[in-house]
């Protein structure tokens, strides 16, 4: 089922800009840089952020409330480079964003994951939350990076001498990067490395007893996820032409969590769908006057319902448990279905303060 969803989504995304441009054009000539193409480009970028959260929580049990930190930090750095030095080349901007995300995630990961004692889920969750909150407060009060107003990027991203305006070409660039991120992540989680991750989410202690250094594995995945978030952040700040405290802090981090949980964690396509659906909801709900101020409440309710009643998310509706988890090596028929891991990482030892 997942391959059908993947290919279906890819084909849809490939033809979407032309379809929507011709549909909305009416009698006049189609405008390929129209609103609907630009909005979906944003979704494609946020989908990468969603994947980065899913790599953390869905694949390695790191409850990260701080993906926004890597996302926003990369955005700030590339915006600052554009402002001070005028370095706009995509071949510089994208690797720079990835590097910033990677380094920030390495630092946070070293701090939170590689301690003397094994960190609990709560510790990691609140530690990432704290980092993200602190970063938001810092940039909101720091004049050099625009304080509360953030930084605007007045120029467009460049490929050689071509200016990449938000629109059709940017859409395909974002789609290309999404595919690269998707394939890279899939390679990671389907490799032998991913097998260890799969073992970790079934029984972390047992994997540790086998001699794997679980925390190192977690830190590697966390850093990789930070790199992906950094890539997304660099593209996002150029696409919106702006980066501000809100793209570093709790707000965007919460969105990343929502995309993942809503779409279905533990699969890579789930968060992409989640990002798309939630962004479409945001687009339409925030347009209705009656609930404009309250639409984030709707998101909270969605999160509550998903967490309490439907932990497998949207994708769980159409995809079987076994396929969601994936398989490694030679498939074992019949028996494997019975032995599939639980729908979500069960880490009941993570309850801080349990007497």
């Amino acid at each position, binding site marked *: 089922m997942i391959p059908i969803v993947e290919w279906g989504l890819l084909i849809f995304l490939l033809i979407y800009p032309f379809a929507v441009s011709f549909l909305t054009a009416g009698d006049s000539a189609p405008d390929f840089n129209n609103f609907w193409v630009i909005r979906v480009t944003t979704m494609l970028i946020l989908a990468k952020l969603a994947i980065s959260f899913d790599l953390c929580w869905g694949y390695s049990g790191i*409850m990260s*409330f701080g993906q926004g930190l890597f996302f926003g930090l990369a955005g700030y750095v590339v915006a600052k480079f554009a402002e001070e030095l005028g370095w706009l080349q995509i071949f510089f901007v994208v690797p720079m964003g990835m590097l910033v995300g990677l380094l920030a995630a390495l630092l946070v990961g070293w*701090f939170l994951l590689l*301690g*003397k*004692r094994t960190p609990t*889920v*709560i*510790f990691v*969750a*609140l*530690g990432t*939350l*704290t*980092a993200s*909150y*602190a970063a938001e*407060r*810092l940039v*909101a*009060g*720091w004049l050099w990076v625009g304080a509360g107003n953030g930084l605007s990027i007045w120029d467009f991203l460049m490929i050689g001498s071509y200016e990449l305006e938000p629109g059709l070409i940017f859409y395909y660039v974002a789609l290309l990067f999404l595919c690269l991120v998707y394939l890279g992540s899939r390679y990671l989680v389907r490799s032998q490395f991913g097998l260890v991750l799969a073992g970790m989410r079934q029984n972390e202690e047992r994997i540790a007893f086998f001699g794997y250094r679980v925390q190192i594995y977690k830190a590697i995945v966390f850093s990789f996820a930070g790199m992906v978030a950094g890539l997304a952040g660099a593209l996002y700040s150029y696409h919106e032409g702006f980066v501000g405290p809100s793209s570093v802090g*709790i707000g965007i981090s*919460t969105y990343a*969590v929502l995309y993942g*949980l809503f779409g279905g964690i533990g699969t890579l396509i789930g968060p992409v769908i989640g990002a798309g659906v939630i962004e479409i909801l945001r687009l339409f709900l925030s347009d209705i006057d009656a609930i404009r*101020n*309250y639409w*984030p*409440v709707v*998101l*909270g*309710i969605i*999160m*509550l319902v998903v*967490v*309490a009643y439907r*932990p497998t998310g949207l994708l769980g509706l159409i995809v079987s448990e076994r396929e969601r988890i994936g398989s490694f090596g030679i498939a074992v028929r019949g028996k494997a279905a019975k032995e599939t891991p639980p729908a*979500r*990482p*069960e*880490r*009941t030892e*993570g*309850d*801080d*303060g*349990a*007497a």
Partner: protein
Amino acid sequence: MELDAIAKLVFDILAFSSIMVLVVLGLAVIASMMGIFNLGHGEFVLLGAYTVFVFRELGLPEWAGMLAAPFLVAIVGLFVEATVIRRLYVAPVIAMLATYAVGLIIRETVRGLIGGQFYSIDEPIQGFIQIGDVSLSAWRTVIIFITLAVMAACYLFLTRTSFGLQIRGALENPMLARASGVSTSRLYAFTFAFGAALAGLAGALMVPLFSLSADLGLRFLVQAFLAVMLGGVGTFEGPVLGGALIGAMVPGFQWLRELPLLNALIQPIVAEVLVFVVALIIVKFRPQGFVSKGRI
């Protein structure tokens, strides 16, 4: 540095610590009793503060709002426990995510109600208390005394009453408590409401010192988490100590700015972030907390 200024600093530290102790106590009570780290705790603080604001908007005195806040927030806590948390006792991590969602709902609702604005609320008791040369803010004195009274009452309640005995029993061994005819689910509901009430009280008392905004709760959640981590989990004294320390750091770093050399170095915003950084570094190098083991 004059005596006057030092006394003022110590007094400020005491007042901020008192608030943090109230917040952290509520969080720690829920965490140690039910094994659930309540990520919506900051929003309970926010609700307490918001209650005072609503009372003022209705033309009622602020102190009435502060009196009502713990009870109203306790009712909200009871409702949340009965509808959401109760289902999730078996899976603390999922419960944690659920409390985050509850916090998100409360936060965004309040944001919708008050808009993106900041409101300042007057202290119900204004003026100063004069002791010798030192004049102390009356309201901060009240906060310190209320906190001391609440802590004493908590302690007496837990050690002297039969309900307190049930709570201690359920904390020690929930299975045995159930077998002995103690309704643990009733106790859990009570504990959750009690923790929420403490948060509500803290929010109501501190709102004159800070200004009311929708993101107020987040700040307290993050600080309370650091306090629990600093103090050590699973004890009664630890979080209280950690809360006092975090509460002390906030005015402490602000005060450092008055020294000539550090003034340029520590901007106001850096002072706030420095609290997080210092706390995280302490946690990194002393992960077991100040009080590694103890009992209630």
